[in-house]
């Protein structure tokens, strides 16, 4: 068989045009990556392309949905009976607990009305199902089967029966993407239930759980401590379980202690999750005020830069010490905990 294209595909030497094209394409990819990393373009493109992306997600979900259906269809009777029994016991227990709590909740509500706070114990939630799509092993993300058309907004907290799972970071028309609390890029303000210490829990770098990277040496944190959302920052409402401290060890710098935290939510196993609809009342520090001063027309000339520098340094100074100040106030009473059900 003769090969007509022998000149264009030589055995050894490549042609210069191919290398040039490679360089062009690689440069294009690099530019795209940098732009996307800086501006998050990908999500805007995805919103446009959602007509294609979402049906493909549904398709990719089919095998895992099929497995789920099969496992129910072929589950053995004994297993189902056991599961049913266990669920019924759980329900009974939960109902008993709720009944006992109802009085307390009512009292709490009355007291809160007296105190004139707006937080309530009512949950306004929406049930969502996890779509089985693999978004790469390095990412701690979930895809839910509800999207912007169902009223889902970025920033909504996502919980399951045991605790906080994460928050919605992006919505497509009929699906949304959740960033889990175990994502290294995620941080959640928490309070240690036992001691009232307030701190921030980050996703672990290796994706295994959460870490508290900066516990003051003198602070009271022990293995077994439960962490609840503190409600600071106004993203997560206060009082939801986040996780349990497993180990506490000195940080490599020696200035802090680091705690490993196991997430409370069943992050690997949840099929159904709840989307919280009411966002927390922002309980953090008020927004920085615009510095009041003489009108711009009377501002000093650009040559007299001395007037500008102190203002800049004081405004950055107001941002940075938030964390130490918050952690230092650990022994104060916890209004945040009042909103929690055990």
């Amino acid at each position, binding site marked *: 068989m003769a090969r007509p294209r022998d000149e264009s595909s*030589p055995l050894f030497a490549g042609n210069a045009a*191919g290398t040039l094209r490679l360089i062009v394409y*690689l440069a294009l990819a690099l530019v795209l990556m940098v732009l996307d990393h800086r501006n998050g373009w990908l999500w805007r493109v995805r919103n446009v*392309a959602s007509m294609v992306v979402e049906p*493909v*997600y549904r398709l*990719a979900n089919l095998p895992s949905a099929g497995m789920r259906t099969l496992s129910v269809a072929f589950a053995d009777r004994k297993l189902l009976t056991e599961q049913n029994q266990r669920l019924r016991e759980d329900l009974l227990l939960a109902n008993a607990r709720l009944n006992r709590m109802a009085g307390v909740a009512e009292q709490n509500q009355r007291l809160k009305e007296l105190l004139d706070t707006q937080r309530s114990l009512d949950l306004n939630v929406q049930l969502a199902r996890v779509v089985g*799509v693999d*978004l790469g092993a390095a990412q701690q993300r979930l895809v839910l089967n509800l999207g912007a058309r169902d009223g889902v907004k970025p920033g909504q907290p996502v919980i399951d029966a045991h605790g906080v799972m994460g928050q919605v970071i992006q919505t497509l028309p009929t699906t949304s993407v959740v960033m889990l609390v175990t994502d*290294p890029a995620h941080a959640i303000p928490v309070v240690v239930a036992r001691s009232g210490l307030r701190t921030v829990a980050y996703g672990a770098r290796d994706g295994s759980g959460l870490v508290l990277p900066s516990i003051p040496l003198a602070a009271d944190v022990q293995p077994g401590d439960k962490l609840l959302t503190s409600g600071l920052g106004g993203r997560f409402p206060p009082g939801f379980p986040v996780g349990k401290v497993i180990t506490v060890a000195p940080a490599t710098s020696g200035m802090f202690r680091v705690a490993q935290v196991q997430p409370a939510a069943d992050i690997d196993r949840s099929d159904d999750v709840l989307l919280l609809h009411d966002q927390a009342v922002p309980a953090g520090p008020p927004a920085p005020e615009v510095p009041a001063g003489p009108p711009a027309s009377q501002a000093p000339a650009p040559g007299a830069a001395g007037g500008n520098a102190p203002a800049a340094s004081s405004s950055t100074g107001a941002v940075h010490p938030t964390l130490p100040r918050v952690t230092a106030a650990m022994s104060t009473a916890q209004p945040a905990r009042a909103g929690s059900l055990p």
Partner: protein
Amino acid sequence: MNRQRLTSWWFAGTLLFALLLMLVPLPALLEPFKPYWPALVLLYWALESEDRVGLGLAFLVGLGADLFDGALLGEQALRLTALAFIALRFRSRLRFFPMWQQTLAVLALLLNDRILLLMVRVLSGAPVPPADWWISPFVGAALWPFLFLLLDDLRLRFRLQ
């Protein structure tokens, strides 16, 4: 004429199916063993029909994968373009390798791909992945002979070009 169109559909279908396979989740235990399907299928087509696969197509497939994956726009485009370039450059030799040698070459290509991915990830500030992250290229290479024979067999059976 009709056969020509059928062939194009088959070509596009395998690539789309590879993207779909990339998205299908595996049980957590098997997750590190998942091969990089788009690379394998693209490699097959690069070796088998050169006039269809160019750098532009590899780039477009990569962009599509990025769109589905949602990680970083351009990441897989970069990886697949580099992969296609190497495969096309050594195409004439790769095609006439015995299967075990070809498998080794595929392993090298996939490892190179992982190294590229690692560079991109680390530069964009992601943590260094665990050791089992390196299993995937070996699984991909181990599957290569079967994938190659399967796709070749289907192509011959349906008399597609």
